[in-house]
């Protein structure tokens, strides 16, 4: 089993599915797509259970020379961080496909075949991003994710999406090109050291002088901050979630944006530890602004999808904060947060999508309430997903949020104090939105009367997410077992020791 290129096969499964479904008629393409994403899920689970060892370190390694003239390798591998992100990705894609089953039928741009093909292409590229261990390969697939994402945003969703897609792509490409400067810089540094190479393991062994490190850090950080997103380069976020289908938004926010925080851990902390510490004050302040500003702006939104998009700004603030306070709880809380946010926000987006489809509007004011009585299951799901987002104890995001807040207090009391306000603000944006869109008599509003409750397919997409929220809320240990060895590795490479060991709640 260990001789098989497990990760290459994992990437190839959705890629083949994407090519196949692009040429099939819509109904068949959907089935093929579901089959391929299901196969990827099963394959990832098999690979993780059979060959991944909880001791940490880079595993399932594959290394082949690709472009010898540039020192580029086709190199894959996963560590604790990579593994949880891979599992999150393969778990969400089938759910998104089922949830968007008929969504793309009437659209141009290839209809369902096009939608399924782009989703699978995005899955393949994202998996490659999370497993790449060569900076060049990472950069290639990092940029390659943008093409399917661009066509998903621009091709499917509400009117005005072409513009939103353009804004999305320009922001991302700009970030990517800034990172290109740093990628080239790393290459030159490694060439100066005598052996041009893009392998992360070779680059990590280099002793880069502090000033160069800072420049390289800026390039990487700008790209990842746009991706994540972080204040003040977040403005593409709400426009994109507003116009795209909710299925696309799940993939963008819950999977693709994690590349930003993933990259911060892998490249900023992993390759440029000194510069990361140098930048901490600025990054922490940006993260705090994102946390509070994202929550405040979310409260003011009338469009439900914009609102959910902006809550993510606040959440990504938390994740970045946890990474850059440099202690065990913070980093392990952040990685846990990346998973929990993926699950919770996916549930929220999907349930909001179902609601909007039934009501024909995304405006909270126009919905006006009343839905609770006619569609209790939908309302209940909305409430659970919402409460998860605002960190209710018993649901998994609570655990990670607490870890990050504790770590923040440990870093500096005022950082923790500012971060903690977001708990109150989150309760406001979730509960107020729920109240206005769901509760009350609502008799005067169109479309409430004949509203159907969730059908079996829709419940089926939400059930695994809600179960995961509950499961990891009460028992986060399985995840932490995977994450913590990796956190220790990071802390060692950064060279910070802190008194509080363990990073457990």
């Amino acid at each position: 089993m260990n001789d098989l290129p497990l990760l290459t096969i994992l990437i190839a499964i959705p890629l083949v599915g994407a090519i196949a479904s692009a040429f099939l008629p819509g109904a068949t393409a959907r089935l093929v797509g579901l089959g391929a994403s299901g196969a990827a899920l099963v394959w990832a689970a098999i690979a993780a259970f059979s060959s991944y060892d909880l001791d940490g370190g880079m595993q399932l390694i594959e290394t082949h020379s690709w472009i010898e003239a540039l020192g580029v390798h086709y190199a894959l591998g996963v560590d604790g961080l990579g593994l949880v992100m891979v599992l999150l990705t393969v778990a969400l894609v089938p759910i998104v496909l089922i949830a968007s089953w008929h969504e793309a039928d009437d659209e141009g741009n290839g209809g369902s075949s096009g939608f399924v093909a782009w989703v699978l292409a995005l899955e393949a590229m994202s998996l490659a991003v999370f497993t790449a261990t060569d900076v060049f390969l990472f950069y290639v697939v990092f940029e390659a994710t943008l093409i399917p994402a661009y066509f998903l945003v621009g091709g499917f969703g509400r009117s005005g999406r072409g513009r939103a897609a353009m804004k999305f792509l320009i922001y991302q490409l700009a970030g990517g090109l800034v990172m290109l400067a740093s990628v080239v810089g790393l290459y030159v540094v490694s060439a100066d050291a005598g052996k041009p190479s893009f392998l992360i393991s070779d680059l990590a062994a280099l002793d880069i002088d502090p000033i160069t490190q800072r420049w390289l850090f800026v390039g990487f950080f700008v790209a990842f901050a746009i991706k994540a997103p972080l204040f003040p380069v977040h403005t593409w976020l709400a426009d994109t979630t507003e116009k795209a289908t909710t299925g696309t938004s799940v993939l963008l926010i819950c999977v693709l944006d994690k590349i930003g925080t993933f990259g911060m851990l892998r490249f900023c902390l992993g390759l440029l530890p000194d510069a990361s510490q140098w930048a901490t004050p600025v990054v922490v302040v940006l993260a705090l602004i994102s946390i509070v500003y994202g929550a405040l702006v979310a409260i003011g939104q009338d469009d439900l999808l914009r609102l959910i998009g902006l809550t993510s700004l606040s959440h990504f603030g938390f994740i970045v904060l946890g990474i850059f306070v440099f202690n065990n709880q913070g980093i392990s809380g952040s990685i846990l947060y990346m998973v929990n946010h993926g699950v919770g926000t996916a549930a929220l987006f999907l349930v909001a999508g179902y609601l909007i489809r039934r009501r024909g509007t995304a405006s909270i004011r126009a919905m006006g309430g009343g839905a609770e009585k006619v569609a209790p299951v939908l309302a209940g799901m909305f409430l659970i997903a919402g409460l998860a987002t605002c960190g209710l104890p018993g649901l998994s995001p609570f655990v990670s949020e607490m870890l990050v807040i504790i770590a923040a207090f440990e870093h500096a009391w005022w950082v923790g104090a500012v971060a903690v306000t977001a708990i109150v603000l989150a309760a406001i944006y979730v509960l107020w939105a729920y109240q206005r869109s769901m509760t009350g008599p609502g008799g005067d509003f169109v479309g409430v009367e004949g509203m159907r409750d969730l059908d079996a397919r829709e419940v089926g997409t939400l059930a695994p997410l809600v179960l995961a929220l509950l499961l990891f809320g009460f028992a986060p240990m399985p995840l932490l077992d995977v994450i913590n060895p990796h956190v220790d590795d990071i802390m060692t490479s950064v060279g910070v020791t802190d008194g509080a060991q363990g990073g457990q709640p």
Partner: protein
Amino acid sequence: MTDFVKPVIDYFELLPLLVVFGVACLGVVVEAFAPRSARYVAQVVLALAGLIGALVAVVLIGQDVEVYADGAARGILAVGGTIAVDGPTLFLWGVILVLAVAGVLLFAERHLDGGVSAFAGQAAALPGSEAEREAGSRGLDHTEVYPLLMFAVFGMLLFPAANDLLTMFVGLEVLSLPLYLLCGLARRRRLLSQEAALKYFLLGAFSSGFFLYGVALVYGYAGSMDFTAINESVRNDTGNSSLLLIGMGLLSVGLLFKIGAVPFQAWTPDVYQGAPTPVTAFMAAGTKVAAFGALLRLFYVAFGADRWSWQPMMWIVAILTMIVGAILAITQNDVKRMLAYSSVAHTGFILTGFLGVQASADLAPGEVSALQAVLFYLATYGFVVLGAFAIVSLVRDSGGEVTSLDRWAGLGKESPVVAAAFAFFLLAMAGIPLTSGFVGKLAVFSVALAAGAWPVVVVGILASIIAAFFYIRVIKAMYFDEPVGDGPSVVYPSVLTATTIALGAAATLMLGIVPGPLLDLAGLAGQFLR
């Protein structure tokens, strides 16, 4: 006065030049004696056979080339040292010949415009006159374009191989004059085409004048036309250095004009727009490759020892070229003009590589050298630009090609394959990974950064961001905008244009995924022979 020594002519090494020149002359004869009905087939077959023969000769020479002791350079100085047939020359010859084959295929396309080529039926007939209408109704067709193209190819081959200022000037003129003519031969919108030709000719003549003046001054400085001798003088700092500096500046005016660098870029949009699209495609690809080859040789070989005099100037030119090209492209609403300004921006990117580390002593083993990066970029860019212009020639309505961007809206729904191919070429120009454009950009930026030219690289990154905007705008228009009124339709081409597009797309994709072999080949070409 020394006695005249008859130079030894190395016929084998010069075979590609001789074949192309011979075929060009033969084409003129065919034009004079063959009956009108047979000319088209005869000319196309002759041109293709000549180019492919020359290509075979290049491969043969490449396998049999002399390697110098230190292994850094290979080749010979032919004809008394006036033509250098070395590694870079052979690489560029190969690229130019492949691009020229594709160019001939585009020239020969007669399927798009109702059975006639893209060239004027009778160039001498005034636009809008009775004679023109008559030529049109009789289905007349200029077949002189093929010999003209072959003469231009001969110039393009000679230009980067010239190791002597006069030979270089001859190459420059032989390359330019047929192109001036070809630009004015469009069948549709003839006034625009003739205006383009006149503009190109006038400005080109000016720049040739500058070049010639520079030749004179540098000769005055070094007492020789030969690059090796000039290099010797520069190294030993003999003679009046103000002659050298002014001469260098004037020579670079002539060359920077040909590559379309700022501030000598003004002709590009008008000429690209006005010229018949097959000519634009061939010229945009071929001229850039040849002229960059000449620029590299002149500055690396003849003026290599005086790097610190010309490098600051080239920094500024590179920075301005990237910025001006990228910003002006945003404001364009015509696909051909947009591609023209994008070619200006690409000139800037290639100049960035030109500033890189050259001396092999300064390179780590396995590190990419500046020449290698630029050669690679030139090859990849040639294919992209050829493919992109070939696609432009397909989008038509009853009045001929439609180049207004507004009218490209909704093309993705109308003909998904053509739109996808064009989107792919645009992504390659924007330097998105998995296309050859990305590897090229990475290579030129890394050599420039290694040489300490970080401000140029930073500007290059900024220009790339700006450039991404206008490329993506076209993709958005094709896929996500609703067609305005009567959209244009895509005319399905014959196998000739289809082959060119397929060649361009395949090369762009392959060189994006496995750039290794071509990079190695460019590395194997080694240094210029001094």
